[in-house]
């Protein structure tokens, strides 16, 4: 009974969030953005959950896991649905060649610095070199990501910077796609043994087959879903079949230690490119995205995370690393002949917030690797998320000033 009440509470809060009561606030302050982006629910989760007053018990959080498992699959599917080749072809080819670097440079830099931190500076935080490496990968995946909603919010204040904003939207799409793929890789690289509560590297011979099976399940389920809904015209029946398939895939993923986010995203990509009713499906499914996202934010902060001075230090340090590496990439790309554009490197300021797909990725990992090191990653992420959002409006202001000066 408590489970349902807890889920009901989550739904109600998600509902209030999705009403967008605060949409009309035009003030460019961090408070306004925290309300707009939904990060306010992180504070709510911190207060009522295991990190605060413990009003929602561990049991309930545990029992909500299947619903979170499904929601992860659902978000992955909706995300994958947006990758329609017909649309992607309209984007200049050299964007594909250059813009992934905006993610990858940050990713590798954060991996490097995190590894140094966990293996040499605060080596007491994690037990083995394997886990230190895994933690570095996870933090790099999460922190290199850029928030789509912040770019959307920034566009209100940067109406003259049309091209820059358009490129930033594209970058943030890439910055969300690559992390999901890398999450799939993490699931193939690391296994979790519940009996001994140990995370360890998979045997090298198993890594590629595991990743290949994830890939195939995602692709085949895309075909499966397409054939199932091919002849259905009734919108209501379509929703039933989509729900059923995503539940099935997410459940299978959980059983075989696959990433539901990654597998469902692949399903969405395949389905999106097979069906002729792409925009119709997007229209049906998009309204579900916001409430699920809010549920993720609350759930993420409900679960016990580790917070201490080291965690805060690491979060701030890694954000600075991200900030510098993005700025460096923009400057470097502008200097190369490869670059298809010449926009101000200060656009990298608005790529700082990290709240798009990252909470979903972290939950995906927390559900499959419920171990001490995951709670450390969770703590670092929550601190980084809050800090990046507090400073986010400053990014817009700085960008405006720098652009004027240039």
């Amino acid at each position, binding site marked *: *009974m408590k*489970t*349902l*009440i807890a*889920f*009901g509470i989550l*739904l*109600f809060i*998600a*509902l209030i969030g*999705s*009403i*967008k009561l605060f949409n009309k606030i035009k003030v460019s302050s961090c408070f306004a953005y925290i309300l707009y982006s939904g990060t306010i629910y992180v504070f709510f989760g911190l207060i009522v959950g295991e990190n605060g007053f413990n009003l929602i018990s561990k049991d309930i959080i545990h029992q909500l896991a*299947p619903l979170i*498992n*499904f929601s992860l699959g659902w978000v992955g599917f909706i995300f994958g649905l947006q990758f329609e080749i017909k649309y992607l072809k309209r984007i200049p080819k050299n964007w594909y060649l250059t813009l992934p670097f905006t993610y990858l440079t940050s990713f590798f830099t954060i991996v490097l610095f995190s590894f140094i931190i966990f293996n040499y500076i605060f080596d007491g935080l994690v037990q083995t070199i394997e886990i230190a490496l895994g933690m570095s990968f996870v933090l790099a995946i999460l922190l290199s990501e850029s928030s789509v909603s912040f770019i959307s919010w920034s566009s209100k204040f940067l109406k003259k910077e049309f091209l820059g904003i358009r490129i930033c939207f594209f970058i943030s799409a890439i910055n969300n796609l690559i992390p999901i793929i890398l999450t799939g890789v993490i699931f193939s690289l690391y296994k979790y043994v*519940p009996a001994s509560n140990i995370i360890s590297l998979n045997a090298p011979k198993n890594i590629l087959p595991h990743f290949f099976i994830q890939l195939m399940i995602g692709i085949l389920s895309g075909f*499966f879903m397409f*054939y*199932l809904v*091919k002849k259905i015209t*009734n*919108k*209501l*029946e379509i*929703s*039933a*079949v989509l*729900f*059923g*398939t*995503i*539940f*099935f*895939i*997410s*459940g*299978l993923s*959980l*059983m*075989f230690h696959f990433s539901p986010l990654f597998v469902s995203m692949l399903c969405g990509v395949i389905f999106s490119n097979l069906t002729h009713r792409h925009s119709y499906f997007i229209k049906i499914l998009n*309204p579900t995205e916001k*409430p699920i996202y809010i549920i993720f934010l609350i759930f993420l902060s409900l679960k016990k995370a580790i917070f201490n001075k080291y965690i805060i230090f690491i979060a701030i340090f890694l954000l600075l690393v991200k900030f510098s590496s993005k700025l460096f990439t923009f400057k470097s790309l502008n200097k190369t002949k490869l670059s298809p554009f010449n926009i101000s490197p200060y656009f990298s300021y608005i790529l700082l917030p990290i709240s798009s797909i990252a909470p979903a990725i972290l939950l995906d990992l927390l559900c499959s690797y419920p171990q001490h090191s995951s709670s450390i990653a969770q703590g670092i992420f929550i601190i980084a998320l809050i800090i990046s959002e507090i400073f986010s409006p400053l990014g817009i202001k700085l960008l405006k000033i720098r652009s004027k000066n240039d």
Partner: protein
Amino acid sequence: MINTLLLIIIIAIGIIIKSSQQIEIFNNATYALGLIMLAGYISGDLVKKIKLPSITGSILAGILVGPFGLELISIKNVDDLQLLNGLALSIIALTAGGEIKLAGFKKNLKTINYILLFQTLIILVGITFVIIIFKDFFPFISNLGIQSIVAAGLLVAIISTASSPSTTLAVIVETKKRDRYTELILSIVMLKDVIILFLFCIGLNIAKILTKSNMINKNIVFNTFFEISGSLISGIVIGFIIVVYLKFIKKDRIVFILALSFFSFEIFEPLHLHTLLIMMIAGFVVENFSSEGDSLMKTLELISPPVYIIFFTLTGAAINLKYFKSLWLLTIIIVLFRALFKYVGTYIGSAFAREEKIVKKHLWISFLSQAGLSLGMAKIIENNFSFFGENLAVLIISVIVVNQIIGPPLLKLFLDKPKEPEIKDP
């Protein structure tokens, strides 16, 4: 063809997973729910081709993949997913209430009253006598005294009176028929549920007196009255909340209805209030006493297909055919006599109300399905009567299983029958 293939693929995947025998990971509610939804939907779609209602397909799929069939999902899965039944039942009841229009209800009031009266009376007396007459066929009561046999007969008779509002509504929604007949059927089925709640409480006490049980609860009628009046008031309040939300906030209606249904089931059930009744009243209030009826029904239509699939496939998964196997002859006797008395009761009631021929002759086939409420009552009997309770509950469940399988196609048959066009009031 492609759907059959997809169903085979799903079942094959299920068998592979089951054969892996990893019990810990096999108890995965997300996977089980996906399997139930897909198997339920595809089977529903397949049986439509032979003109059966899709819920029959969903029930059969549930039996097939469930823990008493191919065991592709475990009993724990079914138990875990029963949580969703609460949500589904609330949504179904809300829809049922919204389907009843006050004007139509008033117009049909005479017929509703007469059919309810005669159906209830004839089934109560008839089934009790059947049990007494055929007592030698029932080994678990044949050696008992006549008073205990009458008690058992009375309990079976009360439960036999019930029909399933959820099944009735699901078939009506699927056929997309909205006319005087659908309103008549829904009104009778829903009102009957309220009457049976009272009857069962009284019947339970009479049976306890007859069997000289020392667990007689003198306050049971008062408690029932309290529960039903409490449910009525709660229903009006919930209806009011829905109206306020739909009128002033408007956004994200699906999330609102889902959250409200979750809350209602989980808050009212522990208070011994009847969620089914509460949500029916709420739906009725929104439909008939506000301008938000259309908005509510449109929202419910968006949620209902997955809800029906989950609800009825889970119903199927919980069906244990071993009950039927052990008591098939007795089951058939009760099912046949129940159907006969439903026919007689409906015929006499319709004749008194001067109803048209189709109502007199064929309406009875709409009342055969049985589900939730009857199952709940069977459990109460099992817990209250040590001499025959367990066996009687098995018999009742077995009868419900048969009625739940034959009921939906017969209801669809009635709805599909050509009828005289309705004459509208000038």
